[in-house]
């Protein structure tokens, strides 16, 4: 894309080019196409209004993603307020034994972690990201929200605890489960599965 855009010279007409990318990003986080489309629409409108503030220090894509991230954080906070404590407690309770099968009763691995060969090269692979996105969708709603807030939106666990109104311990539990589930899904469907491209 055009990385040479000059400060204050963000051509309004080029904004639309970024819509598909922004939509994919919003959908990954929000898991609801209507919410995602609204967030992207608001992002593009906000960008149009404030494009004179675009400094040109970052690429337009990074700048737009930054605006979108703020919109998503606002939405997550709104959702967290609406989510009842009961649904979060239930999610925490129901997932309690989810990863027990990975371990023997004495706490050793029963399914030994396999080596992931040169994992960083996958970051350039479109197919890897498709699997990654499918894997994030397997997480329960609140767990996914905590994970996205932490890993994609860069919030501290303190902020996440506050937003989701859960204790720090429960926050770590949710993030642990999110990572365990993502790791297991990537192991099965990518690193140890049929999709790996050597």
């Amino acid at each position, binding site marked *: 894309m055009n990385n040479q855009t000059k400060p204050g010279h963000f051509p309004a007409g080029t904004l639309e080019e970024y819509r598909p990318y922004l939509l994919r990003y919003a959908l990954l986080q929000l898991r609801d196409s209507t919410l995602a489309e609204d967030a992207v629409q608001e992002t593009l409108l906000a960008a149009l209004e404030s494009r004179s503030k675009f400094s040109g220090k970052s690429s337009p894509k990074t700048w737009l993603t930054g605006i979108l991230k703020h919109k998503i954080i606002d939405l997550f906070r709104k959702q967290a307020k609406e989510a009842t404590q009961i649904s979060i407690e239930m999610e925490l309770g129901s997932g309690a034994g989810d990863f027990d099968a990975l371990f023997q009763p004495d706490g050793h691995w029963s399914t030994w972690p396999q080596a992931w060969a040169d*994992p*960083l090269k996958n970051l350039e692979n479109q197919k890897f990201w498709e699997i990654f996105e499918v894997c994030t969708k397997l997480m329960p709603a609140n767990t996914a929200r905590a994970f996205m807030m932490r890993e994609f939106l860069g919030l501290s666990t303190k902020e996440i605890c506050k937003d989701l109104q859960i204790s720090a311990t429960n926050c770590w539990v949710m993030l642990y489960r999110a990572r365990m589930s993502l790791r297991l899904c990537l192991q099965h469907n990518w690193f140890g599965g049929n999709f790996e491209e050597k």
Partner: protein
Amino acid sequence: MLTCKEVSKLVSQSLDRRLSLVEWVGLRIHFFVCDGCRRFREQMAFIRRACQHYPH
């Protein structure tokens, strides 16, 4: 000595909070003798890196 299950939880928490010295030393000792947990730690680090790499 920490079990692999405890190690997996501490590795995840190390991405969210500062571990105590005792926890940190416990992990070091465990990694020294356990290939599986070393791999697990690398995989957790990869997941964080992947998330930071998106947008790609």
